[in-house]
């Protein structure tokens, strides 16, 4: 057994990912020697704002609604095989999430885990709204009224600290996604705050794992061009990282999917802007010299990550009230369907104009080129749509009042009796919107801390 290799698997790449993905990852990790970890990444920018709202209604909630679905099936096996769990499913309430996991352990009747709660990402607890608003927005909209949440990406160090304290499970709120992987590596290898190249390799490993099966053939398949075996049972990734920062990406045993240079390249560049400067709380990652190589079947070696000194500021996402989104759809099919769909769109657009609302509207015909179209100009590269077919008219509005959103949906509904011939399959969706803005704050303003509950606490 060697402590020069650490094995880290991923059981979820976003809130809403497969609930049964973690099982095969845990079964595979159980066969490996050395330190073993399972991460779940469940926290999109808006997820945290929703969680804050939930916590305001019930102080014990506000952790990820998926926490139980991910943890319960694997908890006993993880504890029995020394597989430590690290996740941001704490969302707005890591302490509440940790208490729920302890309850689950009691319900299952397994060993009671030692659980670390990482807190200190809530900027609102250390900075007032006026000061928050004095920061320049670097991404997203200017900060609007009604701030719901302001959470800072606090990085990997508190996770490493939690593991050094003997945690079986680390529950975090907002941190950078790669920190879920980098934290365990810092703990196992003792990488210092200035081991930039090692921190960069750990961050790259985290970037490869954080989206779950996006590196193992999912979100990749393109039949006839990029074929992926048994996508229905795609295996989630397991990376093995060495003390020197060598990365090997594989996947859970006895699963579908594939790990090839092509699947890994797509994930390396996913949500990457300047490849020489991927900013995180712990290091600036430079992937411009990275290369990939098939090491064995479904295992790809990744090397060449370089690191530069971390920034003095931390990214913070501010979430605020964003009004309403109203959407509604209706279908037209068969002979002359396109002309009937176009007429329906004209009717909707004319009636919206006559209402004189200053809200922003959009009308699409799904089945032509709706997602490629611009808000006010169609996609020039779209071919001629067939006159006969199966088209769906979609109306959408962004507005301050729920009534305007409902009115638009009612207009689409009215096409049942007052629109072109043969409209069917009406659906509506009215959503309260949360908008986000990102700012950079002085990292010294945040003081993340770790508490323990459960065994030995």
């Amino acid at each position, binding site marked *: 057994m060697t402590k020069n290799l650490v094995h880290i698997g991923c059981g979820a790449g976003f809130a809403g990912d497969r609930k049964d993905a973690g099982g095969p990852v845990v079964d595979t990790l159980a066969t490996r020697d050395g330190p073993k970890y399972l991460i779940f990444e469940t926290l999109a920018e808006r997820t945290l704002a929703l969680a804050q709202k939930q916590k305001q209604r019930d102080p014990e909630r506000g952790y990820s609604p998926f926490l139980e679905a991910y943890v319960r099936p694997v908890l006993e096996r993880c504890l029995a095989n020394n597989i430590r769990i690290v996740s941001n499913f704490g969302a707005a309430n890591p302490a509440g999430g940790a208490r729920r996991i302890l309850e689950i352990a009691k319900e299952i009747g397994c060993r009671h885990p030692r659980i670390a709660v990482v807190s200190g990402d809530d900027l609102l607890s250390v900075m007032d709204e006026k000061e928050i608003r004095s920061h320049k927005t670097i991404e997203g909209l200017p900060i609007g009224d009604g701030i719901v949440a302001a959470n800072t990406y606090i990085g990997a160090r508190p996770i490493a600290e939690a593991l050094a304290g003997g945690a079986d499970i680390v529950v975090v709120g907002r941190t950078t996604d790669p920190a879920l992987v980098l934290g365990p590596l810092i703990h196992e290898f003792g990488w210092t705050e200035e081991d930039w190249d090692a921190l960069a390799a750990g961050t790259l490993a985290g970037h490869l794992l954080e989206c779950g099966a996006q590196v193992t053939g999912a979100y990749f398949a393109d039949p006839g061009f990029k074929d992926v075996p048994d996508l229905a049972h795609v295996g989630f990734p397991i990376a093995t990282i060495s003390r020197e920062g060598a990365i090997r990406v594989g996947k859970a045993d006895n699963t579908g999917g594939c790990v090839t240079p092509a699947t890994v390249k*797509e994930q390396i560049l996913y949500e990457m*802007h*300047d*490849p020489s400067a991927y900013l995180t709380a712990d290091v600036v990652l430079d992937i411009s010299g990275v290369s990939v190589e098939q090491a064995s079947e479904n295992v790809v070696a990744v090397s060449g990550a370089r690191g530069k000194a971390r920034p003095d500021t931390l990214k913070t996402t501010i979430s605020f009230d964003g009004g309403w989104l109203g959407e509604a759809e209706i279908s037209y099919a068969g002979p002359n369907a396109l002309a009937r769909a176009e007429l329906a769109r004209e009717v909707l657009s004319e009636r919206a104009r006559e209402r004189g609302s200053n809200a*922003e509207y959009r009308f*699409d015909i799904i089945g032509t080129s*709706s997602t490629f179209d611009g*808000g006010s100009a169609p*996609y020039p590269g779209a071919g001629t749509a067939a006159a006969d077919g199966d088209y769906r008219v979609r109306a959408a509005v962004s507005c301050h009042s729920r009534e305007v959103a409902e009115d638009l949906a009612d207009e689409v509904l009215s096409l049942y009796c007052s629109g072109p011939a043969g409209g069917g399959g009406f659906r509506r969706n009215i959503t309260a919107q949360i908008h986000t803005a990102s700012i950079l704050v002085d990292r010294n303003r945040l003081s993340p801390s770790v508490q323990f509950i459960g065994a030995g606490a």
Partner: protein
Amino acid sequence: MTVVLDTLRLRLHDIAHGRSGDKGNRSNISVIPYTEAAYSLLLDQVTEERVLALFAHKGASAVTRYELPNLPALNFVIDDALEGGVNSTLNLDLHGKTLSFMLLDLPVEVPLDRVQELTRGRRQG
């Protein structure tokens, strides 16, 4: 006049693959050739100017192309490509997830004698 047909018009999708991601109102789209030999053709033909023109109807304001010869791959960062981004777009696809395939719809001219070579990597997964 004699016309010599020495290239074949294919789509980028025939010789490369990619994935899009979003941050605010900015989209990034990777373009990864199936064969290393196609990389130089991508460098010549998939230019910042062409990509900006492709996204003009969405209101794109600037395109930066990053070159990664080691992979090899290109990474395009397209400013103001997402009609406001996930915050405020009315596009059905809030994140612009489908847009990698809009870029892969771009025509490319491939020398006739290299068509087989440059499309060879497909189906390898």
